[in-house]
């Protein structure tokens, strides 16, 4: 079973995303900010990470940069899921090593196609 870590400070978003991912057959784990996300990745690298941008303690982009510096951190497919919907943010995310980018709001079909595109679904 593929694993997905949701890194998002909104409990509601985590719940909705978890629901979508579980119905696609993922085993889902959650973290409320970037630092907590990194701690989870230390324990076990997930196959996919769904990542929010603005979070307390450590932002999504800081998390991603730290993840990609980690010796095993190239493996997870990282999909940004955020309300930062302008092309500047999107380019910055891609430059930092994001594999895909989903602008909120989105539906399950869009997420599923994105996961197919990164080869995770």
């Amino acid at each position, binding site marked *: 079973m593929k694993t997905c870590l949701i890194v998002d400070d909104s409990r509601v978003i985590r719940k909705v995303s978890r629901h979508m991912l579980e119905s696609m057959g993922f085993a889902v784990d959650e973290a409320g900010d970037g630092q907590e996300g990194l701690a989870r990745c230390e324990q076990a690298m997930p196959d996919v990470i769904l990542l929010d941008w603005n979070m307390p303690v450590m932002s999504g982009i800081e998390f991603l940069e730290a993840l990609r510096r980690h010796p095993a951190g190239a493996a997870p497919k990282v999909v940004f899921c955020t309300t930062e919907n302008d092309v500047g943010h999107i380019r910055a995310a891609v430059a930092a090593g994001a594999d*895909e*980018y989903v602008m909120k709001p*989105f539906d399950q079909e869009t997420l599923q*196609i*994105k996961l*197919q*595109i990164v080869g995770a679904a």
Partner: protein
Amino acid sequence: MQVSDSAARVLSGLLEARTGQQLTADRMWRIGTALSGLLRDHGLASVDELALRLIEPDCGNLANAAVDALLNNETYFFRDRNMFDVLAQTVLPEIASQARRKRHLRIWSVGCSTGQEAISLAMLLSEQRGKWAGWSIEIVASDVSHHVIETARKGIYPQFQVQRGLSVLQMINHFEERPEGWQAEKALLRQIRYEVHNVLDPREDARAFDLVLCRNVLLYFGQENRARAFDRLADAMNPGGWLMLGGGESAAGLSDRLVADDAATGLYRKSDEAGSARDNVVPARRAG
């Protein structure tokens, strides 16, 4: 919303006459919802009142708007990605080698809705740029609905749609963010010619297309109209040309001019023999 049988008959008659599509019982319940915006815009109280207006003589614009509202225009970029993979890996390379002398590629996207399928094709070709250097490429994209063609011509997509089906790189490389939405790159739009056209009507440019996509369009056609549509598509195709239908659609039993191809389900080729035999046939009895 309650819709009387007679109103439903007027609307389904109008839709079928204009487009070939039937309002089957399982779609009937959606009439009220589909038409609610139109009723509001025209100050009509009910679908029955709309039906009464539609049987008056000069109801042209209202009839167009009603047909538009009843059509399902659902589409997205690279819909069924594996179908596009088959095009990229099998169909297009074969066309490129067969037609390499004329260096002219013509594709028809039938029932193109707001243009996502045509733009996906243009993107696919631009991703294979090396293969098509020096070729003249034309994508004709047509739909029976004026409304969707007008939208398609602008090439501007709201955020929700632009990310549906596109990879992030395709999105930022081929679209520009504008206040009105995401504008498709001019280089892609230049290759596409949008037309209002009913697939049941003959085209002037017969035997012109190397590849035809007619996906998720004929689902609600009755058998007879579906067969007629396949005949029109075959007319428009080059001998040996390719036809791609939507996932789960089939031309089986409806056309002897289209032969299923092994590369994918829903993929057909125009058979030269059947096509030319039909064209050249001399009616035996009247011949003497």
